[in-house]
């Protein structure tokens, strides 16, 4: 859809529309409205979050005792494989695409994404990926049990000998997820480059939009490499080619290069939008501009570039030559610099402000602190000699869960709370939100901090049983894990009951500065009655400048639904 004034667009009112009693039906259709698609992504992925979480509860149940006595070892191996795969491909990536889908057109003053139908197709591939992954539990031989990395030769072993086996289904699911993501990448990049409102120069574009752009560019250069590796793995598995099979002359380490060339930058695909959320949330609840906004914006794209050059740090123990390990150690440590710049910028944004500790702000602050902790363990892991001991131990598991849960999931929650009124037109219950925060923070630290210690003592990852000396750490971690499971309950309760009967939200409940706050809550189908013309840079807190031309006339009053 292009940015023409409303009068020139025929809007069919025969279908459900926001504000109408049957609006909920829109979420179960092949809607091309980015706002509907965004919410479809978010809700669908949250369901998979719960499924992936359930799998991890069983894993933590097994790990409460040193022996493998809860489930068969094949089941445990399937659990950790599917836990990782579901959490990454069906929760983290899609929920962030959902938030991006909802927010980017609004933040840039567009009526929709560049390719709305492609957008819908991208979304509907996600349930297909989910069905494939879950269906793999039902085939003979069970789901893939080779870890979410699917390293050959283990991933090629296929004990049942069947052509349709869990590993094949897994590869197909990941491939479809890749296609969905690449289509999304094309959509986001085109939208952000071509559809910003008049007056919105690059340095008047919100940091969240910059971060989504940076993340989607990574998807575009990285996913094809993963696809190439996956195609070759699939051929080895089904047809008997020799790309990675050592008994047929293949090189299993080459697979690792293909895999990590994408999968390392992939973690930046996950964390960059969360950085963007932090950049949006801190100014609002500190009532201060984003400190060093331009540098923060540019650092996102720098991370896109540098992150392409660090992947071998996952392979320091794999048999890579010494020069390669040292080279990638330098690049890995280098990527900490633009990241550190952001961290300091956020601290400087918060410092000296007028803080309001709403739930979104609490999650953002908690996420930032967790991120700093995990950044430090990350730098440790980047050092070759350090990694030789802790590689493939629970130290790594602790590190990346601090990033993924402690920073990314916290950031996602912050975003969901912050934009909940805009998306639903309702306010959430603040008290429940704070309870959710407290339980999540406690659960995160209790679950994932002990893992660092068991890792340093030498407990390998992915084990279904361990030596008794690791017992204490595992008991603590399991308690924390169960607490985390419980912590989702106040969130679910809050979201559901608030959406149904929460207090009606004004257009701008947080008095935030941004284009999305200059339209109704929720926005009309066409987002804005009139496309705004941007006249100021973002985050103008403390200055009394309007963000758009004729702001007083253009912004609808509260309570107006179109």
């Amino acid at each position: 859809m292009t940015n023409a004034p409303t009068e020139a667009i025929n809007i069919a009112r025969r279908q459900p529309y926001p504000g109408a009693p049957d609006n909920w039906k829109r979420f179960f259709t092949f809607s091309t409205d980015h706002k509907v698609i965004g919410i479809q992504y978010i809700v669908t992925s949250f369901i998979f979050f719960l499924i992936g979480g359930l799998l991890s509860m069983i894993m933590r149940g097994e790990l409460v005792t040193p022996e493998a006595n809860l489930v068969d070892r094949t089941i445990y191996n399937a659990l950790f494989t599917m836990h990782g795969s579901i959490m990454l491909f069906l929760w983290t990536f899609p929920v962030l695409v959902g938030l991006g889908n909802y927010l980017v057109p609004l933040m840039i003053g567009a009526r929709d994404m560049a390719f709305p139908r492609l957008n819908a197709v991208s979304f509907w591939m996600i349930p297909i990926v989910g069905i494939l992954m879950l269906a793999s539990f039902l085939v003979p031989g069970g789901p893939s049990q080779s870890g979410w990395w699917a390293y050959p030769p283990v991933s090629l072993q296929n004990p049942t000998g069947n052509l349709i086996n869990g590993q094949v289904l897994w590869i197909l699911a990941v491939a479809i997820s890749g296609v969905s993501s690449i289509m999304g990448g094309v959509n986001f990049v085109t939208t952000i480059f071509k559809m910003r409102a008049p007056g919105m120069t690059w340095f008047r574009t919100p940091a969240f939009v910059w971060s989504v752009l940076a993340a989607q560019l990574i998807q575009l250069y990285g996913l094809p490499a993963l696809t190439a590796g996956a195609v070759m793995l699939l051929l080895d598995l089904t047809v008997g080619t020799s790309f990675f099979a050592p008994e047929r002359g293949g090189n299993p380490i080459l697979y690792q290069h293909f895999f990590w060339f994408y999968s390392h930058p992939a973690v930046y695909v996950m964390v960059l939008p969360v950085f963007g959320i932090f950049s949006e949330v801190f100014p609002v609840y500190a009532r201060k501009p984003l400190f060093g906004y331009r540098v923060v914006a540019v650092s996102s794209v720098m991370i896109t570039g540098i992150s392409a050059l660090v992947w071998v740090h996952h392979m320091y123990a794999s048999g890579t030559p010494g020069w390669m390990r040292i080279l990638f150690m330098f690049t890995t440590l280098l990527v900490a610099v633009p990241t550190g710049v952001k961290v300091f910028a956020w601290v400087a944004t918060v410092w000296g402000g007028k803080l309001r500790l709403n739930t979104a702000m609490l999650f953002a602050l908690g996420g930032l602190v967790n991120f700093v902790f995990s950044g430090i363990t990350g730098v440790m892991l980047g050092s070759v000699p350090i990694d030789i001991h802790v590689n493939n131990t629970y130290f790594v598991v602790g590190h990346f869960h601090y990033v993924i849960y402690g920073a990314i999931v916290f950031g996602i929650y912050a975003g969901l709370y912050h934009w909940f009124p805009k998306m639903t037109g309702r306010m959430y219950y603040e008290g429940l939100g704070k309870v959710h925060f407290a339980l999540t923070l406690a659960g995160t630290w209790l679950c994932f901090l002990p893992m660092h210690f068991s890792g340093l003592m030498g407990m390998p990852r992915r084990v279904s049983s361990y030596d008794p000396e690791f017992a204490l750490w595992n008991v603590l971690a399991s308690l924390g894990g169960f607490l985390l499971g419980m912590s989702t309950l106040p969130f679910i309760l809050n979201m559901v009951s608030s959406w149904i009967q929460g207090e009606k939200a004004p257009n701008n409940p947080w008095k935030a500065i941004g284009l999305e706050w200059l339209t109704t809550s929720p926005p009309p189908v066409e987002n804005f009655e009139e496309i705004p013309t941007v006249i100021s840079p973002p985050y103008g807190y403390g200055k009394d400048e309007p963000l758009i031309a004729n702001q007083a006339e253009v912004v609808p009053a509260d309570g107006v639904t179109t």
Partner: protein
Amino acid sequence: MNIRAILTISIFVAFLTIASFWVAGQAPSWFPPQASAESKLYDELFSILSGIGTFIFLGIALVLLYAVLFQRAAKYDDGDGPSIEGNTAIEVIWTIIPLGLVLWIATYSYQIYDTMAVRGPMELVHLHNPMEMKTALAVPLDEVKPQLPTEEIDVTAKQWAWVFRYPNNVTSTELHLPVDHRIRLALHSDDVLHGFYVPAFRLKQDVIPNKTIDFEFTPIRVGKYRLRDSLYSGTYFAANQADVVVESAEDYDRWLAMAANQTPTPAYNPASAEYNRASEKTLVRGWESVPPAPPPVVNFAPKQEPTSPPA
């Protein structure tokens, strides 16, 4: 800046420094005993990084805590804070210092890596102009006694057992090493990727099928340690462990001689034992698994199931 601010910052920095040194001092207690020469270098490096990390983490966390406690908006104050959009000087500083810090960490790590002589594998990628890997025995460690001969032992990893072959062709499922001698292991895998990992040595090397990887280190402490398979290698990978016995040279020779006199018999193999038990279970079965390799037939196997070494 006024005197009060300078004083506050100085006290804060002093506190951070004390805390960092304390944490750095705690770091060695988080590890298994230092059983190899390399482990001493390792623990020192980790200690320093922990100290630096503590400084940064507490520095940021406490600043944020202060803001959260003392810089809240007044109850009915809806207004904005100061319109501070940046400060070039500060931003340059907080770019340059981290850049310098990571470069220093990378360089220092490289030096430790070199000194540890964590000699990587033989080049797997043989280019037409192969780069010679530096033999990293450049800086001899105190504990390495160069006049002692290097002991070469062959290690085979398989699904799911470790088999060791000694210079006199003795085989066992327990790794015996003479203390203070440099050890060179030749790592093989019979099937899939495995990981040779001895936490007490702080060393790990993935084992690749169809390749032989050389791996050198020096054990310096008599005792019994644990070898674990660190790279996920299939169903019973968690059970793929073995004991590592570091003993005096005399004890080592005595053990070798004793083992040479024993006829090879199948060793106790936890993976095989579990697999056979699982096949008998009918209540809740898992899925089909790759069958374990038959228990290794070796001269010496520990008499009972390997158990955890003392802390």
